């Protein structure tokens, strides 16, 4: 009874098909963990299947190489950086927005936090200065985006496209197009290290995911994000400061970019104006494949995590199989289509049952 959809909409607007939300409708009352599991397993069953299929293919074609803790770590480390960006993007998209500037912000934040000035300060004080710098730069760029969109009434596509050009240009100007090596005491050691057997980068990603999940599903901020994205008029009439909230969302994704910049800086031990190339498309793709509705009103952190894992596992399996890049591109296109169609069929079946 609880799963009827108004049919005319559902069959006409393709985007509507993508609806999924981690609200707890109809979920059996139980522990928070139980609910989390049921929401992730139940609603993301298509994604789970897609990921499993991918893993089976990986294992079948490369055997030992794929089924290996080190390889899992390779995938996870790789996934962590873009993953943090995708998590931030999930909020903006859920709130009805769009951010094309994430890659450029990552680049600018990485450059700004590895300038000679910042590194000297970090050397004198603590490497945490670099972290703060990166996050502040990300937040600042996000603020500009948000203000232009919320108060300047610019289309998100245009405002963030402008930021994309400007931030990367600024990064090039600051760095004079040079890659900036990091040699601050402790920075690399900390971020490249392990903690309880897992790489620190993966821990950061995990923490970001957990915080984001709570934020989206368990706080007023998260619920208001869905409201703003789903029906801005209703949100405004309910007394939500829609403009301010929109600004916050872009600041949030900016902060995520700042964190990702730190991670990337640590991973490559450099800041570069070329960091984060094409992150915007990848991140949005991961978010949308995960089931968040482009246009707003539905968002899922768990789905995004699956989206991130699917993409990075795909790349890994390709490389292990020594595939030529062109073939990779064609296969990637086909696999994305198959994964999404599969997910829809499975979701539809589990809905009606």
């Amino acid at each position, binding site marked *: 009874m*609880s*799963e*009827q*959809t*108004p*049919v*005319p*909409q559902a069959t006409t607007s393709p985007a509507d098909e993508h*609806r999924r*939300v981690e*609200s*707890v*409708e*109809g*979920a059996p009352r139980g522990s928070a963990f139980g609910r989390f599991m049921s929401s992730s397993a139940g609603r993301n069953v298509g994604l789970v299947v897609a990921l499993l299929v991918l893993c089976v293919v990986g294992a079948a074609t490369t055997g030992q190489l794929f089924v290996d803790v080190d390889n899992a770590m390779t995938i996870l480390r790789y996934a962590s950086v873009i993953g943090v960006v995708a998590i931030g993007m999930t909020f903006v998209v859920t709130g009805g927005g769009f951010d094309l500037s994430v890659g450029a912000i990552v680049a600018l934040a990485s450059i700004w936090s590895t300038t000679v000035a910042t590194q000297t300060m970090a050397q004198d004080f603590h490497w945490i200065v670099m972290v703060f710098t990166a996050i502040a730069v990300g937040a600042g760029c996000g603020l500009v985006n948000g203000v232009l969109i919320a108060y300047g009434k610019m289309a998100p596509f245009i405002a963030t496209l402008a930021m994309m050009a400007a931030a990367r240009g600024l990064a090039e100007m600051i760095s004079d197009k040079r890659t900036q090596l990091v040699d601050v005491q402790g920075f690399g050691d900390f971020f490249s290290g392990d903690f309880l057997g897992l790489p620190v980068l993966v821990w950061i990603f995990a923490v970001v995911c957990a915080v984001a999940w*709570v934020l989206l599903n*368990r*706080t*007023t*901020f998260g*619920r*208001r994000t*869905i*409201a703003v*994205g*789903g*029906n801005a*008029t*209703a*949100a*405004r*009439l*309910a*007394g*939500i400061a829609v403009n301010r909230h929109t600004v916050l969302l872009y600041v949030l994704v900016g902060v995520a970019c700042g964190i990702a910049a730190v991670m990337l800086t640590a991973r490559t031990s450099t800041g570069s104006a070329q960091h984060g190339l094409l992150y915007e498309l990848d991140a949005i793709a991961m978010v949308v494949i995960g089931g968040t*509705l482009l246009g707003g*009103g*539905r968002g899922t952190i768990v789905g995004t995590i699956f989206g991130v894992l699917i993409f990075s596992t795909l790349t890994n399996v390709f490389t292990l199989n020594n595939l030529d890049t062109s073939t990779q591109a064609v296969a990637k296109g086909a696999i994305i289509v198959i994964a999404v169609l599969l997910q829809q069929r499975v979701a539809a079946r589990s809905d009606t049952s």
Partner: protein
Amino acid sequence: MTAETILQMSDIVKTFPGVRALDGVDLDVRKGEVHCLLGQNGAGKSTLIKVLSGAHQPDSGTITWQGERVRLNTPMAAMNQGIATIYQELDLVDGLSVAENIYLGHELAAAGFSRHGDTERAAGRLLERLGHPEISPQQEVGKLPAAGQQIVSMARALSHDVQLIVMDEPSAVLDQEEVGRLFSVIRDLTADDIAVIYISHRLEEIREIGDRVTVLKDGRTVATGLSAPDTPTSELIREMTGRDVEYAFPERGMTAEDAPVVLDVAGLSSPGDFTDVDLRVRRGEIVGLAGLVGSGRSEILETIYGARKAGSGSVTVDGRRIRPGSVAAAVNAGVGLCPEERKTQGLLLDEAIYRNVSLATLGRFARGGFLRRGDERAQAEQHVRALDVRPADVERTAGTLSGGNQQKIVLARWLLRECRVLLLDEPTRGVDVGARSELYALVRRLADEGVAVVLVSSEIPEVLGLADRVLVLSEGHVVHEGQADDIDEHQVLDLVMEGSAA
């Protein structure tokens, strides 16, 4: 009845580009009363209450609340003063649960963390108070039918600690039983000295629940302080329309027994919604479907129209079977549908009125794909004028029209199309009395011209008054079929109840 005045709005003016929606409106509301706001479509009722709720800023005029002049800059400011509003257009967020919608903007939270359990329990209590314990607070709102959503809107208004609740046509999507429940809630509220502003186009409701009436016409207050129970209907209508309107159903035509069957629906079923519906409509006949909200009437219309896939059964128009599940096939066979939700299913809100009207008839105005726009506009305008849409400027965008006028636009679309079968789903929802009787006359005229009409309405008197024959539905089954003359409102209600008990 001389309770103190709690709200005084005076000389409120609000203009939109090109329209003066409010042109000096006065309104005063007393503690604990039900104050009814009447007016034709487009009179400015919704605009007035949006000014009151802080959603619109007036161009001039004053609002005095509990003796003090206030400025209500934002919806939050109004809520903080103790004014809650149920808007005419359901303003809910589909992706959130019932409980989350009810507490949106004033969440029960500790340090920003939602208190899930508390919210759901509190929402549950509110729904129970409204007589709907069956709506689960965890249910996603987008999956509720319109009536359920209206209940959630009401619960949301009640969730505030308020002195005044404004209800903009809350009964439009409710059936009689639901309206009864709504009224008992309103009585509870007024007993607690909470004032209610009540807007409806159903005059009998005003009489039943209202204390005093204010009438708006063309953005001005034309009468105020009228007694709701005692003022004669004819006087209310005269105040609203400025003329005398015959508020009656048109004379039934004589549908010949041997008139050809135009629409023939046989054994139509859709699992979960309705089963085994047989429906025959002759040329010139109006067949009404009566039943409670949720009895599957809309689904039947949509299935006939091809907008839903049927489980089994057939639809025949003029003896030819139409391909199931194809709207285009139905439209080509001469079937038209006025959908239940005009905003989401009917209109292109950003487009000019005439383009909305001509949407289903584009082919007629085209030669080799090129539109003859003069023709298109002229013919659309003709129908818009015939339906007395206000303002009658066909270049306006449909989104700026008042609710009732939007409904007329959708009707005009099918008038223009000159269809053989017209399926009307709640055609008078939100339509004012004047326009309503015009609509009735129009539907009857269409029937007399040979159109076969299927009418769905939650107002049983409307079905019984307008239709030639009625089918009574209960939970997806036809429980009675017969001439409209042979049955009265109580019998219909009894049938419906029996059906659901069985």
